């Protein structure tokens, strides 16, 4: 039986008709056309499908879309505000924290959850939290530099 579900994604509410066996990842990509969220392993081992659910980094391939009703979902498309890139997005460009770009949406959203939890984390803490996001291009160094630079920035604002 299909369920009619109201999904709150990037501040917009979408009424969608979904089967219980559809994952949030598939609904985001195939029903809402939000292709920024990537499908990597589809088994919760690579982090490419990371989205924010109520501010926490969730693997959308391991979440039923019906289970996401009533929760605030943010995908990579929802990060830039008013045409202005999010500081993390800017930092990834500036520091060269991406090459092919496939892991980048998941990486940035995980970093956002991590920085929201801890504004000025240690490098070890950043590395531990992004450890579930696999990147085969960068060797992680520039990604960690990008996240650290945003953390240092927010530290200055305080």
């Amino acid at each position, binding site marked *: 039986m299909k369920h009619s579900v109201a999904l709150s994604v990037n501040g917009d509410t979408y009424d969608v008709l979904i089967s219980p066996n559809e994952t949030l990842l598939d609904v985001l990509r195939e029903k809402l056309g939000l292709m920024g969220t990537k499908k990597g392993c589809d088994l919760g081992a690579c982090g490419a499908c990371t989205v924010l659910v109520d501010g926490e980094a969730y693997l959308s391939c391991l979440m*039923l879309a019906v289970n996401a009703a009533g929760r605030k979902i943010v995908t990579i498309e929802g990060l830039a505000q008013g045409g202005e890139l999010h500081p993390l997005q800017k930092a990834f460009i500036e520091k060269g924290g991406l090459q092919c770009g496939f892991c980048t949406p998941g990486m940035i959203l995980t970093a956002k959850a991590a920085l929201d939890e801890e504004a000025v984390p240690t490098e070890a803490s950043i590395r531990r939290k992004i*450890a579930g996001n696999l990147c085969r291009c960068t060797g992680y160094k520039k990604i960690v530099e990008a996240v650290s630079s945003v953390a240092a920035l927010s530290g200055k604002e305080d």
Partner: protein
Amino acid sequence: MRLPKFEYAEPKSIEEASSILSKEDGAKILAGGTDLLVNMKHRVETPAVIMSLKKIPDLSFVRPEDGGIRIGAMTSLKSVYSHPTIAEKLPGLALAASSVGSYHHQAMGTIGGNLCQQNRCKYFNQSRWWRSSRALCFKAGGELCHVVKKKNICFSSYCGDVAPSLLVMNAKALLESKEGKREVEVESLFTGDGKSPLGLRRGEILTEIRVPRECQEGFSTYMKFANRESIDFPIVGASLWASPDTKTVRLAFTAVDRKPLRARKAEERLSGGLQKSALEEAARLVLEEAKPVNTSLYPASHKRDVMGLLLESMITKLLGR
């Protein structure tokens, strides 16, 4: 990878949830989903009904009280290890919860779900295509075990990180159904049968973990040996609790048997004093108590070596505190 088809239920109370579980033969509970949904994608579990506990109120909490600490079964692992009382008073549990999977699994996964996770085996946790090259094993519904061929039982290993840290604290589990509640030792949740590792009665749901007050005193730790620190299940996981005077020592291991294992003979030896001879004998005794078999990519002999090393590291930490 598509999930198999199922009916979805979102009960709003324990009574309603318990009725669904009693009525529907193939109903499974969904908590964080990080174990069940992976198994479903592999088609090793294909429940007819999935029942989410998210809509049942008051299952996610950490409450330090006079009698000890109460933790709701749907509390995320991240909320468990981030809670100041747990971080300060129960470091063993905090370490265990923070070593599960990746940051994402810790945010999604729950303490109840982690305890009630499926046993694992290299012949079971595989895609349908991979498994199709040989006969189905007991755990996947077949009639043989590829690991221990002569025995007629499933030898899959229990690999949860949190269980050993709760076992050494003699934690209790609250089980609820429409018939009522009962409190049991967390240890007694596990049957030791690889095919159906959990010993809950029909219609019962794990709703709460209770850690006794005495455990907030003393020393506790959890150590995990895994291939990758970032995300893997343990090759071996071990937990230790010691009373402040170290006269009582409790030890438990995970990923070395069909259930999380209390090493009682070694505990007894260590509780008599932590001199070198006792440590050596305890390291020998833990190997007698566990029965690791080749259910993972790491041979049982390697697991036995790691058990000794983890025991030694935990005792060193205890003595150096």
